[in-house]
């Protein structure tokens, strides 16, 4: 990645923060609802994309175990238990 791309991403990020605080009116209720749904879908999608290789190839057992452990801990809705679950799952995967 070039420095220019990084600066562009930084500008996009700042613009998104400043737009609503400085310029834009509050989004409509419908738009606000859709916006609120996007992060969870993207994070789940990114988890899948980083887990699967091209062609849907599965990762090594420890990585798969880490993802499974994190998923099992995810109802806690807190990062720490998810990280601990992932670490336990990773360790368990080393035995396969």
């Amino acid at each position, binding site marked *: 990645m070039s420095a220019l791309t990084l600066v562009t991403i930084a500008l*996009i*990020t700042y613009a998104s923060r400043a737009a*609503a605080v400085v310029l834009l009116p509050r989004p409509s209720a419908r738009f606000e609802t859709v916006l*609120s749904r996007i992060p969870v879908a993207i994070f789940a999608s990114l988890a899948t*994309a980083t887990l699967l290789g091209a062609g849907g190839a599965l990762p090594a057992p420890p*990585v798969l175990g880490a993802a499974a452990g994190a998923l099992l801990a995810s109802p806690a809705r807190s990062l720490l238990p998810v990280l601990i679950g992932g670490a336990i799952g990773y360790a368990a995967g080393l035995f396969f």
Partner: protein
Amino acid sequence: MAVFGTLYGAAARHVLGVPLTLLSSVLVYSGALQFAMVAMLGAGAATLPLLLIAGVLNLRHLVLGAALRSRFESGPLRRAALAFFLVDETFGFAVAAGTAVEPAAVGRTTERTLLVAGLHLYVAWLVGTLVGVLGGGLTAVEGVAGAIFPVLFIGLASLAATRRSHVVRAVAAAALTAAVAVWLPGLRMLAPVIAGVLVALPGREP
């Protein structure tokens, strides 16, 4: 925040190199986006998917910013400066602090909390990134690098899933992404953006 900054620095330095890793934390200051960026770059993403993921992931700031704006009292220049510190965590702190005071003090308290919390978290994020970049005894982290991103994104998804319908949408987005990875591998790194938007659109319930 410092711990995640350390994880980010350790993971990103191999993908971005040391100068860009540090610069990314200085300029972007968004953990979720920076981790997404590094994960996508590591999987071979080009510039367009990176810009798209930045645009789509940052859309949530419109909602956070709009919710805060009605509480602010200062002029546009000060609001523009405060906007840099608007991240999920500082939004939560600022709203909570503003809610706990008399109506006359809401604006001042909300703005001060956003600034103070934002500065503290920003410094913690930068120090964490620096520690991660410098190694910080993190050879163990490098060994488990392949597992860090899925685990982290599962954690972030669990935090963002405040309703049962969000969980359903998350599962649908994951399934859609897996299908793209299997049948359209060339579009694999665009899948998070496409799936994120497609899955978020239908339905009227929150």
